């Protein structure tokens, strides 16, 4: 059973796990969340717009992404991003991009589809009368959105957005499939190098558990506070 467990392997690899691995995971989570919310909000506006082509294209993108497993999307972008880079820069050959950039593009565009649905619900939770009142006052569309609708929609959806961010934090572990050294990747490398699978995977599970639990507890508290203010 636990007789030949060596917990020292964790202590020895702590700097590698956290400075290399966890930093990658946190950076990826925060940047993909920020990018995902921006693109997701634009997608939500596109889906709700009256321009027929635009709303269909945005809807098709969101439904396509949402019907695919994240692992498959990671593979798609892992091979696609070099070609996108080539197309954008007009280079002669597909451009080699780093693991972080590839993962960032993947998670931003993948999460954008989910953030789009959240923001769409948020925008739709604002009474239509507010849009009409803004129009009646002669406010241009973008001003009405930026000054009136989006701040409220965003505020209504903050708990859901944060919960989605916790899910994203857990999902970043899937970059393992393209051999990127995130927190789990780092743990897995040490585990395989030293033959310490039990220790490293248990430790990784505990760290993910504690961070996610603390974060979801924080979201719940925030939810209560917002509820009381209204």
């Amino acid at each position, binding site marked *: 059973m636990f007789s030949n467990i060596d917990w020292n392997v964790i202590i020895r690899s702590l700097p590698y796990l956290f400075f290399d691995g966890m930093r990658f995971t946190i950076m990826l989570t925060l940047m993909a969340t920020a990018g995902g919310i921006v693109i997701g909000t634009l997608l939500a506006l596109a889906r709700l717009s009256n321009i027929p082509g635009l709303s269909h294209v945005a809807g098709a993108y969101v439904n396509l992404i949402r019907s*695919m497993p994240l692992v498959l999307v990671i593979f798609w972008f892992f091979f696609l991003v070099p070609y996108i880079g080539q197309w954008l820069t007009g280079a002669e050959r597909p451009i080699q991009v780093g693991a972080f950039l590839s993962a960032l593009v993947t998670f931003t565009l993948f999460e954008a589809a989910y953030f789009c649905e959240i923001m769409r619900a948020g925008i739709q939770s604002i009474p239509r009368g507010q849009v009409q009142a803004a129009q009646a006052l002669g406010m241009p569309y973008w001003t009405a959105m930026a000054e009136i609708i989006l701040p409220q929609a965003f505020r209504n959806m903050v708990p859901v957005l944060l919960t989605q961010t916790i899910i994203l934090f857990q999902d970043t572990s899937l970059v393992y499939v393209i051999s990127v050294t995130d927190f*789990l990747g780092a743990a897995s490398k040490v585990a395989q190098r030293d033959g310490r699978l039990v220790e490293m995977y248990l430790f*990784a599970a505990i760290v993910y558990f504690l961070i996610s639990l603390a974060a979801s507890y924080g979201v719940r508290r925030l939810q209560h506070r917002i509820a009381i203010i209204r």
Partner: protein
Amino acid sequence: MSYNWNWGIFFQLSPDGTYTYAQLLLFGAGWTLATALLAWAIALSIGTVVGVMRTSPVPWLVRLGNAYVELFRNIPLLVQMFLWYFVLPEIMPQAIGDWLKQSANASFYNAVICLGLYTSARVAEQVKAGILSLRSGQRMAGLAMGLTLPQTYRYVLLPMAFRIILPPLSSEFLNIIKNSSVALTIGLIELTAAARSMSEFSFQVFEAFTGATLIYIVINIVVVSGMRWLERRVAVPGFISMGQPAAAH
């Protein structure tokens, strides 16, 4: 673009010499569905029990149910896969551990159990929400009629709760199909893994992933329309089901 498209690749023989690449993808889809369906059976049964526990009047049952849900929701699915596949056989007594490691289709059974328990926590969350969305008068009326508490759940609360949570449950079912792809990390050749190996053998990366994507879309459409049919089928006149499922994946 310097990529050579070759859509005929699907009808060429794969390196195993017996099946075409298209057939390999379909076998992968078969494993995906088998994993998802078996895991769903686990998720639904355990999820219902845990969800009921969390709404019961017994405090320690509520705490136990809450702890269960927190445990399975706060560890990434991939890490849970590794715990079941790599860690569990090591911390079991030697004989059981060896048996676990050597059994045929070990990655399939591991994937089913892991995915089933992981999803059961999410189902429990929905079941709890469904029961709590019912008016408390329903429980009281059931008890006042002389039904026992289990009978009240069986005949009054759960039938209505399940109808209410049918939309979020169907999105959990779609999630379990998509999440089964995580099992490729422990060696299960499901749809995504089949597309991955096709891309490695044939070098036709984008055709392989397009094929897998199309199969996932078809599965999605079939499940969504099946669930819509089920919703209409079991609807109780005079009640409308609640809003859209929350975003999750």
